[in-house]
């Protein structure tokens, strides 16, 4: 089972999420949430021995699937970096990971105000493209951040998470005039988001 632990972002403590728990993304000050970022970070595989180039690199990929009435309408992933309407943007594919010290190696930015009116749910997923399970990856995490103030709203620690290569992480969905976030945290297996479709559908 994927560990859902408390985050420690500079903007303030993250929300301690348990699986399936919904939190409203409305801000405490009264304004609604306007932009969120899904961040994904992991530590590059260590160099091994004399032939460092033979290191098995770890490539995790973040994807966002846009749904209208439970039908997938658009996907933002490393081969389609911006949704057609421009509201969801991927910062680009990172193939090897980073220092593993908390910075995002891949991020997906969602401008919630610009999401087309028929899109009512956006599901965030993480996949291991190179096939390592989360048990083999070091210092891997994914998180949801309020882009306007940098506050971390949810964080999942992925490493040590068992024999899985993917996770359905969370979804943001319309609620009234604003948006809510629901943590999902379901482990799955697959190389790209396409493999995860059957695992995503029950969460819509």
């Amino acid at each position, binding site marked *: 089972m994927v560990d859902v632990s408390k985050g420690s972002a500079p903007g303030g403590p993250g929300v301690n999420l348990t699986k399936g728990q919904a939190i409203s993304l409305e801000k405490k000050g009264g304004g609604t949430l306007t932009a969120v970022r899904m961040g994904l970070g992991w530590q590059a595989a260590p160099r091994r021995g004399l032939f460092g180039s033979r290191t098995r690199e770890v490539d995790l990929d973040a994807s966002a699937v846009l749904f*209208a*009435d439970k*039908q*997938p*309408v*658009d996907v933002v992933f490393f*081969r*389609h970096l*911006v949704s*057609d*309407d*421009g*509201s969801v943007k991927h910062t680009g594919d990172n193939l090897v990971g980073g220092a593993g010290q908390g910075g995002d190696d891949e991020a997906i930015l969602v401008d919630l105000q*610009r999401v*087309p*009116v*028929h899109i009512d749910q956006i599901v965030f997923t993480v996949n291991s493209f190179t096939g390592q399970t989360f048990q083999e990856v070091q210092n891997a995490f994914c998180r949801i951040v309020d882009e306007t103030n940098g506050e971390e709203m949810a964080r999942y620690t992925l490493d040590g998470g068992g024999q899985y290569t993917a996770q359905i992480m969370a979804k943001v969905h319309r609620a009234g005039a604003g948006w809510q976030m629901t943590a999902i945290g379901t482990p799955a297996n*697959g190389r790209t988001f*396409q*493999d995860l*479709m*059957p695992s995503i*559908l029950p969460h819509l």
Partner: protein
Amino acid sequence: MTAELVRGQNHPLPQARLEIRVSAGKPVVAGATLGDEQGTVRGTEWVAHPGSPNLPGLEVSKQAAADHRLAVDLEALPETVHRVNVLLALPLGVGGPARFGAVAAPFVSVTGLDGSEVVNYTVTGLDTESAVVALELYRRQGKWKVRAVGQGYAGGLAEMLGDQGLAQARELAAAIQDAVSSGMARSVAPPPPRGPGDDRVRRTTSHATNGGRETPPDATPPPAAAPAPVPPVPTAAGGPQSGAPQTTQGPQSTQGGPIDYAHPRRRNTAPPPPPPAAPPTPPGQYPQPVAGDASGWSMEERLYNQVWGMFEDLARTVAAYRSAVDFAESRMDQELDKALSDPRSRIGTAGDTARATARAKHDKLVGQARDVLERDLAQLAAETDVVEPALPPAFASWDNPVWHGYRVPMEIPMALRVGDLHLPERPDLRIPMLVRLPLERGLWIDSGRSGSETALLMESDQLRRAAMETAAAHAARLLAVYPAGEFTVHVIDPAGTGAPALAPLTEAGVLDAPPAAGAQGVAAVLAKLTQRVELVQMAVRGGVTDSLPPDLDTAEQLLIVNDFPHGFDDRAVTQLRYLADEGPAVGVHLMMVADREDASAYGPVLDPLWRALLRVTPVPDDHLIDPWVGHTWTYEPLLPPPGSQVVRQVLAQVATARRSLPR
């Protein structure tokens, strides 16, 4: 669970309606052929390709793309069809890779309509092949199955189609490539990358520009004053003033002073002036648009990026609206179908209620989408209102007052406006179409009537005249935005029919030679330009650019060709093709004013020529495609307002400046 197929492996298909998704990293052509029991493709009507994308039960993309979705309905295929081959091919003659070995292994997957994947297959092991049969769907004892094939063909589509028994393989392969490349020629070149880590190539030019007169001296008035644009007449005085903060860092200031250790050409140490700041936004409202509100090292670059930003925003806003409306309609159709097929709804009012509910849901969603669209369009319209008056001449329309204060520039601007673009949702919201200078490709001003509805309504002569007038306006604009003597225009007008339209150019005296007439004139101009391209190419390749003959004209060259192929023999056509291929790299550009039909006798040998040029039209025409979402945009040429003397006045200044050049 998804089956990952290896080459040769097969898998049953659970449903008849499928989507085949292709991801290739680079643009590829995707198509499909139908085969009978023996696997023979019986005729060209059994091939779905970009030139003919729809067959019963089969739909493929109309253009080459890195990602494709092909729709297949196996039940809708004719009874005689027993196989469907899904093929991929590299588009040829457009400057992309010519072998699959040079691109990432294509990934294909077969999915249900809900996106659930049935099988996928990565086509690996390709090398010199330029076409490949990726998958085969086939009937086996009444059931459909899929097999991973991965058979590549070094001989390309022609060899593949021939292998499948198609008699007209060669002709069809050529037709497919032609359809693809004409689709590509229609696309607007993508803008330079934007966003964080701006690594601007124009740094040197834009810096130099700061001190010159190209940049309107902080021409961005506060938004309140924006509707009354300050005509940039005092630019000569204002330019250096506003440029002063940068020039103090320049090498001139070191004369007689202490040694400046700064690299003379590395000038990015001086930070660019800050962009104009938008006033604070009242809560709950959108910020007031400000001209120059984009990143860049100069006002010119900021405006350029802002215009491209508006172009992208309009494309995406309309994409959001269209996708919402499409969704609303397809959902309503489904719900209406359901209401119709439900036996309970046939009696009583339940059916009526269901239909009314479906329609109400549709109307509500479309209404919401419309509101969002209106909000965004209003914002973009407000931005246009402040940006247009702030544009420098090269970016401005002919009716912009900036042209009345025109002075011959000292520096080449970074881009040129060649027209306006708009979408049917809001025809009066026009985005300037800016192309980079120096030109990366020539222009083809289409004088043919086949292209657009407006053109069809016009007399052929009238249209040809309009095309030539458009060409003259483009040439005048190019002459005006280049520094004196750095842009030379040649004209080939074999029968002299372009003379009235060319009058502004000839009368102002901005041409080095009168328009060339007759076969001899054509030959002379082409020989001169061909020789120039050869000389410069040799010099560049040999690294001896300083040993070019001193009388060589180092200016950029534009050759306007009217009435093509009238007056052209085979040799002249060959030279023209050579100029189209090799010219742009050494500053020689073509502007063809032509109807492609007139040259149809030459057959496909001229296809690369048309393909190499950016097609624009003398009348509004929807033929350009944006690089983000692929909308079809209506292009409108830039013409001076009727009766306006602005072009003549501008050209008179250009001519004066050219005459005063040391020869």
